[in-house]
């Protein structure tokens, strides 16, 4: 078991498919507490990524780097730099490690640094910080993903566009947490990585 160029690309393409399928749902979540574009932003970026990866890079590091650069240069908004930074940190870490848990931990550190959000701020950080330890402990399950995503519903946003709503941001799932949920679902479904 371990990360390879092939299963990494499978994971990402699966993520991309989930984004495409749930584009409208993600945007609807963002309409409630943001500006209604998260699905479109992610879809624009992941389409470009899949397109890019159709020419297979040679190393895992190259795959991560290409994903990062493509997301950074096509998504924009808040999710572009955050997902971009996540993959960039994984690219860096992959020079010295091929452990998916360690890579994702580096990604989370990057996301937190880039956006300044902490757990509880109702951002994707909430999902990542719950699930990364589970991955490291080889305990990731679909239920855990779903509950991590659902748990953002009751939080009051402190970072991102939803923060302008204050208390009224309660009662809605955070769109970036939902898309992150898809990333982890896709990981769970990809044979051979975890």
């Amino acid at each position, binding site marked *: 078991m371990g990360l390879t160029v092939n299963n990494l690309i499978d994971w990402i393409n699966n993520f991309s498919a989930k984004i495409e399928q749930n584009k409208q749902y993600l945007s609807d979540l963002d309409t409630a507490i943001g*500006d209604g574009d998260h699905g479109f932003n992610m879809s624009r970026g992941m389409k470009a990524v899949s397109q890019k990866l159709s020419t297979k890079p040679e190393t895992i590091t190259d795959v991560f780097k290409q994903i990062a650069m493509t997301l950074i240069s096509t998504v*924009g908004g808040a999710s572009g730099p*955050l997902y971009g930074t996540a993959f960039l940190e994984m690219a860096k870490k992959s020079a010295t490690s091929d452990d998916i848990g360690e890579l994702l931990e580096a990604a989370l550190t990057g996301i937190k640094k*880039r956006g300044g959000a902490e757990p509880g701020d109702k951002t994707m950080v909430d999902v990542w910080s719950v699930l990364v330890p589970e991955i490291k402990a080889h305990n990731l399950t679909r239920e855990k993903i779903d509950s991590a995503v659902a748990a953002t519903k009751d939080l009051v946003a402190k970072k991102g566009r939803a923060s302008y709503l204050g208390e009224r941001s309660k009662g809605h799932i955070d769109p970036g947490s939902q898309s992150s949920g898809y990333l982890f679902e896709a990981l769970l479904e990809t044979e051979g990585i975890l």
Partner: protein
Amino acid sequence: MKKIINDPANVVPEMVKGMVRSYPQFITKIEDAEAVMRADKESMTGKVGIVSGGGSGHEPTHAGFVGKGMLSAAVCGEVFTSPTPDQIYAAIKAVDQGQGVFLVIKNYSGDVMNFDMAKDMADMDNIKVKSIVVDDDIAVENSTFTQGRRGVAGTLFMHKILGAMAQNGASLDEIDAAAKKVLPNIKTIAVALSAATNPETGKPGFVLKDDEIEYGVGIHSEPGYRREKIKPAKDLVSELVGKLNDEMHLDHNKKYAVLVNGMGATPLMEQYIFSNDLLDKLAEFDVKPAFMKVGNYMTSLDMAGISLTFFEIADEKWLGYLNQPVETIAW
């Protein structure tokens, strides 16, 4: 959704092309980027560059304010979406004259992060970059633990002041110091009658009833602080001035610049009626604006509504900067 567009996915590049082709005397496209810079390159020689930008859909902001005496370049993101770091970096690089570049960023997490990453890229290229994050929208509660307030129409005053200073030869450090001094003096608050419809989503950001308005909405249809039945213009003025006064404490010994900003679909007739009531209301405070503008400056596509910005002119020189002539499409 009924819009004069071709493909919703192409609105930004087509708009940018239309803009530079319609006004080649003011702006020119930056190669390989959805960004525009001054056509009059000579006016930038040896000066600090002022670069702004953000999501599109706020036209004439930002590209309409590129030109001699104001912005050096503007970066045009997707509709209501921060531009990407490579685009911002392309603009920085295009206008840098060795004197450094100053970035005017509106306070949205996307903009802040993307501009930050562009700054990192410029750093690696040894281009000196400083920046300010404008957060003039008082609709949002402020706190150091949160994202803070949004940057909205008041950003134009920042553009104008810094643009004039750069034109007059100020250094990057001087501009940086002025930006910090200007920032807390700009406050804005809006009222919306209807939301914008993003061409990509095809849906309005929120829906108000036929007789409803909402105070405090953002320029991307972010929700505001109160919804109620439509009132006479006078009462809208009272509400907005009241909010601004709570923050700024209007003082007849001080000077103010005022921007009455149409959100896109509100006729100028209504903006002038609002302005008339506004000037009556300010007279109650014995305040008469030292500078005033009324019109569609920082729009939100086809949103109906008005935002009101007060800028306390804490430094007499600022009034001169506001009045200094520029060569732009829209100032």
